[in-house]
């Protein structure tokens, strides 16, 4: 069976963004080493243990913009992605390295595992120096406490980003356990839980909130 051939940069970007486990093989015609890599990837693809992995074959010149973006400077180069993040790359026809990287990708925890959710939550709470998990958005809060906390932050001239937990039940439930905090809104500063609206109000009254919000 052949690798999936992708000829459009847009399609390649979409796969990188959406696939859970992805191997992207950048090649070029008339480069003998590419044939060698192509053959080993086909063999690896056929192994049922790798059934969760999507193997993609692209011509580096045909998807030149993406190649440039990903800093592909020679062929063959093989990139390994998990949940949209590059986790490894092998330049040249190093068959042992390619095989090892495929094994690592195959055994990495898949979407939905506790580890993966933890990583996602960790990324979310660190997405901005001041991060508010609320119901709705600052422009359209969907509960009184979310509205109040936005008001407090704004009157303290806070520069903050928000995440609407009504849009993502996995995050909504996961973050309660992750932070051992049962309610929303939840405010994070530099990745640390500050608390809900009652604590934030208390900190604002004492002047501590303004201090906390000074982020370099």
């Amino acid at each position, binding site marked *: 069976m052949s690798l999936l051939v992708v000829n459009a940069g847009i399609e390649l970007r979409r796969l990188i963004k959406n696939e859970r486990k992805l191997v992207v093989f950048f090649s070029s015609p008339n480069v003998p080493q590419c044939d060698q890599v192509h053959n080993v990837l086909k063999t690896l693809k056929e192994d049922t243990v790798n059934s969760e992995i999507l193997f993609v074959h692209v011509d580096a010149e045909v998807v030149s913009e993406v190649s440039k973006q990903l800093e592909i400077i020679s062929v063959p180069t093989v990139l390994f992605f998990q949940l949209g993040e590059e986790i490894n790359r092998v330049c040249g026809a190093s068959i042992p390295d390619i095989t090892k990287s495929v094994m690592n990708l195959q055994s990495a925890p898949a979407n939905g595992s506790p580890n993966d959710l933890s990583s996602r939550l960790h990324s979310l709470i660190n997405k901005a120096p001041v991060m508010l998990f609320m119901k709705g958005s600052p422009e359209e809060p969907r509960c*009184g*406490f979310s509205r109040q906390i936005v008001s407090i932050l704004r009157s303290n001239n806070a520069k903050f980003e928000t995440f609407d937990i009504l849009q993502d039940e996995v995050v909504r439930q996961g973050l309660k356990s992750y932070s*051992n*905090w*049962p*309610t929303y809104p939840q405010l994070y500063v530099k990745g640390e*839980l*500050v*608390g*809900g*609206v*009652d*604590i934030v109000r*208390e*900190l604002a009254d004492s002047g501590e909130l303004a201090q906390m919000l000074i982020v370099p």
Partner: protein
Amino acid sequence: MKDQIEQKLKSLNPLHIEIVDFSDGCGLKFDVKVVSQEFEGKSLVDRHRIVHRLLEEEMKSVHALTLKTLAPSQWSLKSS
């Protein structure tokens, strides 16, 4: 519900408890103030976690709970 909350909070040997019921059409809502030695030296987040743990059952039915947790030293200063 208010009595249940008060009963649970007694395990903190509080010097003072104040529970205001401001429930409305959205459901049960309480504002709770507790003064206890248990809170001394603890961060606000950890103090609230202590109360959350005690009120785990009640919080399933309560729509909104706001807390103020004070150590005795803070309370005497504020004399609130």
